[in-house]
């Protein structure tokens, strides 16, 4: 953790249910709220000098990541419904953070692959195989899109779920995390071209 936003999101996702901040600007209770806020993001980044193409690319990636939070938890939130969503750009370095207190990747994918072993296996599968917990629908390509764009555009992405963490750049490394995240937490970092 090295920014205030990162500290804030880890606090948001690990705090007790009755103490979660659901009144702040970062909280999106429904998909509509998330999309309305995300839709303003690329133009705000461009106004601060970010390259147009990169701004719309990270916007599209955030769209996939944020919609995932709602797609895989709607009607099934364990405690607080919705997502934490924040972004910042200082003219050189940018960050986008999306988190949810949902069921997490392992519990979600186990609906389609019951013998998945642990959080690490689940993250590996989510980023590399065409699979979705919504087994009756043809889904499951959003994280591959994110991974491809991270690699191609030299971005940095950290994805936490359960006790696993995926670090993505040109390669993907999955490891045990010292942060337990019940749900999912994604940090995307980018720099102006």
């Amino acid at each position, binding site marked *: 953790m090295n920014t205030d936003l990162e500290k804030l999101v880890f606090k948001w996702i690990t705090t007790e249910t009755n103490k979660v901040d659901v009144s702040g600007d970062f909280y999106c209770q429904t998909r509509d709220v998330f*999309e309305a806020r995300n839709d303003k993001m690329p133009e705000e980044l461009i106004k601060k000098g970010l390259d147009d193409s990169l701004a719309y690319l990270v916007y599209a990636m955030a*769209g996939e990541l944020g919609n995932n939070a709602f797609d895989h938890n709607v009607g099934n939130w364990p405690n607080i419904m919705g997502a934490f969503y924040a972004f910042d750009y200082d003219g050189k370095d940018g960050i986008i953070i999306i988190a949810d207190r949902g069921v997490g990747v392992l519990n979600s994918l186990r609906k389609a692959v019951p013998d998945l072993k642990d959080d690490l296996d689940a993250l590996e599968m989510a980023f590399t195989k065409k699979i979705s917990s919504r087994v009756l629908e*043809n*889904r499951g390509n*959003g994280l591959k*899109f994110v991974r491809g*764009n991270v690699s191609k555009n030299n971005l940095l992405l950290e994805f936490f779920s359960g006790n696993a963490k995926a670090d993505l750049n040109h390669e993907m490394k999955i490891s045990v995390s010292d942060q337990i995240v019940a749900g999912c937490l994604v940090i995307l970092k980018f720099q102006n071209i």
Partner: protein
Amino acid sequence: MKIEIAKFGNKLVSRPSGREAYLAMESYLLKDLQKDEPIEIDFLGVKALTPSWADEVVTKIAERFSNVKLLNTENSTVEATLKTLREYSDLKI
């Protein structure tokens, strides 16, 4: 038949909005067309596209029609989306 994708918005992200767009296309644009009708999907003016939105539209059009062309695909999110759909959603165009 040319389908101008930007008429559905220039930032096309979520699967529900893609589904809604395809339902509208089915009712107003694609309804009485034969399988071999030439279809052009034009991305001119699109600023951002995701696989979730496009999977509900482009993949479905490609499954239904045999003669589909893609126009103005230079936008980086359009390119990346089409690449993802070809790899993971069996898009053949």
